[in-house]
């Protein structure tokens, strides 16, 4: 991993920043747009969120 790699990563992160803004506007419609997901589907999504959380290690 060299500084060029870091630059590549940072450039991509910069690309992602406007995307996060778009995500927020999507979520704004959430409350008035309740889904028809079953409890089982919801549990599967919760499991995915927990797995995503667990994937991020603490940097000691």
């Amino acid at each position, binding site marked *: *991993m*060299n*500084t*060029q*790699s*870091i*630059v*590549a*990563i*940072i450039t*991509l*992160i*910069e*690309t*992602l*920043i406007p*995307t*996060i*803004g*778009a*995500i*927020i506007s*999507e*979520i*704004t*419609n*959430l*409350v008035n*747009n*309740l*889904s*028809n*997901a079953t*409890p089982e*589907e*919801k549990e599967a*999504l*919760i499991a*995915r*969120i*927990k797995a*995503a*959380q667990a*994937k*991020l*290690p*603490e*940097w000691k």
Partner: protein
Amino acid sequence: MRKKQVLGLLTVLIMITIVACASLWKEKTTATYESIGNVLASIQQGAKSTCDQGLIKPDDCVKLRDSYNKARQVYIVAGDTLIEAMNIEELYKETSDVIKKKELKEKMEILIKKYQGLILELNNLYKEYIDMATKMGVR
């Protein structure tokens, strides 16, 4: 190594595009949440590797580490908030009591606002990381 990481991040970008076409908000939000986590993991992997090789000053590595750990903490709280919102939504759908329904909807609105705030905070932490890397002379 570099190619692998760039490819990983490109995958995240493609995922976000695909996710934008999905129909269920929970599916959409969960996939986006996962994508953000993948980006954070890539940052951590790249920055840690750079520090382990001694390519960045130890003091700067401490700053990078703290920035990542802060973002990670925000990410975890955002995930917990999202889970709570999903559970509340299910209760909302199951309840027929009008007053209870109103209460649950209000609670959900609060949780969604909290989630939005956390994602914004995460966004700011990304910017902080970029500023920090620039000051370190990364580019």
